[in-house]
């Protein structure tokens, strides 16, 4: 009996009656906090709404309900708290677009000075609020090692303002400010801005990337992050049907394909060094991921790449796989 390690029906699902209660995800629990509850105004199939509930519920469980969340301006803020209704069920605050890490530092400082050490602080924002406009404050929070878990919901563009390019937008992607016209359509093939790696360069105790397609991995990372004090950073891959031009029901699927293609590596780092990576289970070519999104439609004609850009994206995926050691060793 004891040798049964894996539950064929429960290994990768949210819950499963066959799995011991304590091994199920937070999301499987009827008692989950639903930090972000019904009635919010996110688009159908919003990956960020999903990722936020996943992450904050996990943080709530880890903090035993003693949690305060700070939110940068962006979709998550707008769709959850338009007067007169809020979807949050936890103490939550929105100040500005670019200052969420600093506001969270203030909250954490207040809790520390008041001796409320049981109360934990998180900050959250989209990729624009994190990797662009909030980057200075983020770096400051990291460098001081303030006791804040910062969660970036990365949907790879400024979605709230109508899908404009951010520094997290992948090469070739169509956005409102990188239209698919001219001889270099879509976003440039730049050098990229890998904020998890930048976070690691601060030697903060914990950095991780996660995706809404791998809930167990995501919750494990949030839980681990919450067990640590100091500055922590988790970046969660959250597809956006509106911005990506994908169908609403493909949100989790796209997150999965992004990871399984190698374009979105999932890894953890402690004190500046990568400590683990989530292995790709069923590797797919980048086309499988790209073809489901209209933002990449200009790369293909009748399902075939029009030029070498798909190959260049594949090369990026291959490089991620090599760099983060994303393939399980051959048995």
């Amino acid at each position, binding site marked *: 009996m004891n040798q049964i390690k894996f539950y064929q029906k429960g290994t990768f699902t949210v819950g499963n009656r066959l799995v011991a209660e304590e091994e199920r995800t937070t999301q499987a629990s009827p008692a989950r906090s639903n930090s972000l509850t*019904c009635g919010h105004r996110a688009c159908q199939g919003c990956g960020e709404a999903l990722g936020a509930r996943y992450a904050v519920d996990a943080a709530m469980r880890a903090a035993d309900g003693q949690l305060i969340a700070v939110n940068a301006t962006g979709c998550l803020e707008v769709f959850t708290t338009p007067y007169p209704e809020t979807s949050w069920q936890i103490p939550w605050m929105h100040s500005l677009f670019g200052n969420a890490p600093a506001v969270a530092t203030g909250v954490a400082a207040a809790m520390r000075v008041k001796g409320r050490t049981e109360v934990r602080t998180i900050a959250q924002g989209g990729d624009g609020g994190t990797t662009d406009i909030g980057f200075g404050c983020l770096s400051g929070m990291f460098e001081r090692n303030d006791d804040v878990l910062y969660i970036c919901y990365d949907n790879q563009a400024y979605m709230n303002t109508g899908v404009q390019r951010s520094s997290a937008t992948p090469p070739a992607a169509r956005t409102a400010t990188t239209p698919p016209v001219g001889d270099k359509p879509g976003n440039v093939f730049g050098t990229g801005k890998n904020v998890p790696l930048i976070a690691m360069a601060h030697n903060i105790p914990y950095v991780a990337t996660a995706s809404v397609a791998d809930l167990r991995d995501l919750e494990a990372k949030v839980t681990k992050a919450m067990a640590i004090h100091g500055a922590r950073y988790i970046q969660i891959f959250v597809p956006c049907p509106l911005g990506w031009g994908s169908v609403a029901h493909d949100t989790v699927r796209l997150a999965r394909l992004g990871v399984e293609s190698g374009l979105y590596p999932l890894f953890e780092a402690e004190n500046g060094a990568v400590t683990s990576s989530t292995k790709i289970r069923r590797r797919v070519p980048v086309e499988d991921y790209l073809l489901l999104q209209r933002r990449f439609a200009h790369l293909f004609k009748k399902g075939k790449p029009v030029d070498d850009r798909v190959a260049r994206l594949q090369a990026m995926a291959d490089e991620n796989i090599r760099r983060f050691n994303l393939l399980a060793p051959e048995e």
Partner: protein
Amino acid sequence: MKPFAITLDVGSSLANHTGSWRTVKPVYVDRLPPCNHACPAGENIQAWLYRAEAGDYEAAWRELVKNNPMPAVMGRVCYHPCERACNRKGIDEAVGINSVERFLGDEALRRGWAFDKPATASGKKVLVVGSGPSGLSAAYHLASQGHKVTIFEAGLAAGGMMRFGIPKYRLPREVLDAEIQRILSLGIELRLNAKVTDIRETMTSGGFDAAFLAVGAHRARHAEIPAGDAAHVLDAVSVLRSMEGVEKPMLGRRVVVYGGGNTAIDVARTAKRLGASDAIIVYRRTREKMPAHDFEVEEALQEGVMIKWLSTITEADQSSITVEKMVLDDKGFPQPTGKFETIEADSLVLALGQEVDLSLLDNVPGLELENGTVRVDANMMTGYPGIFAGGDMVPSDRTVTIAVGHGKKAARNIDAWLHGVEFETKKAPLAEFERLNPWYYGDAPKTVRPMLDIIRRQSSFDEVQGGLDEGNALYEARRCLSCGNCFECDNCYGVCPDNAITKLGEGARFAIKYDYCKGCGICATECPCGAIDMVAEEI
């Protein structure tokens, strides 16, 4: 005092019913899993695996025997078409349904689980002719429905072809006996040595309200082979039947078996176990064309049985047979080549097919016969009202499992007929592989059942294939994908971005909060087993 407008009370968005955005809505469904669909006995395999994987073996067994009263037999002799249909093949290998069934069957025998007695008696009497798989199955279901059942069996013991056609090394007799006895314990009367010669006469004299005919194909089909007087020519049915008697058949050291079906294999393997040095199967076509199941051919070859492909027997003598080599024509039919070969043989066993003795129907009007079988309608009733038939007697493939299925179906229709109603059954649409999201199933290769070592296989009638232990059975049960039926994985509850699903608790599944569901469809896409349909809203 909270500042006006900029500070809000938590959870107040519940007032905003986003369900009005929806154009399609998710609906939970139960679809027909392909295993259930393929099972000739109509077992609800997904349902009993669902119990088994939770470790509740008795509940699993009780779910199983709703449709089939002989899981221990099935787990040994069924050719498991369920596994050929299993969707898990699309991921790795089919679930070992048959081995879990055997585990449950053996567990039931070991623990002495009994069938539930019928709550009330119907007052009706039903005659069952034949105690093979079909007759026993019908008797079981009829008795469970409260009818008084009497089985007339021509032979010395119950079991039909299960006893007289299947060798012990595939089906130990204590297993067969125990499962038969458990059926009879429902209050069924079994009359042995009671050959029915005139069905209408037997029904009238016994006061039966209906009858189910389940006579097996016990008569060997013969081929005209020139044979000398001294030639030792036998038929497979007799050889296998005599294995149940005191005197074992005398086959000699060199045995040739003629035919390509499972029976030919059974005889050759039996001959090997009786001490034959050579057991040679002669078959006129190729291995690919052979009707015998591949795994049985493989096991026979392992045990030293030899097979001469593309060969027909043209003559048999006292110590040899003559074989002509054949070639397949472009249509796949064997054609003679004129090249001959002589094989040393002490005996020749013909395994060329079997027929049913239909003489008990001679005086029944309104019947339609077809190739030595009797036609039945969709309700398993013959052209004569009140007389039903199944198993080898009706046009169909002949396997134990099909026979069991016939028995069940006939019993349900007999019950309806006795009550003057129609038996109705509704089948859900099939749960195709394309509806699944296989990502969520872990990699778990099939468990291989242990096999008896080769020396003992060649020298004894001990059971060749072993069963699973509990750990293995549990593992195997958990490989089930639960196609088309919610197994409470919590995925829908988890993946809803709108928190619009309520978890109702174990066994109660989930409910959708349509006030908030925006109809994105992630739940349906991410349901591993395809148990959610997206249905257009009426707008």
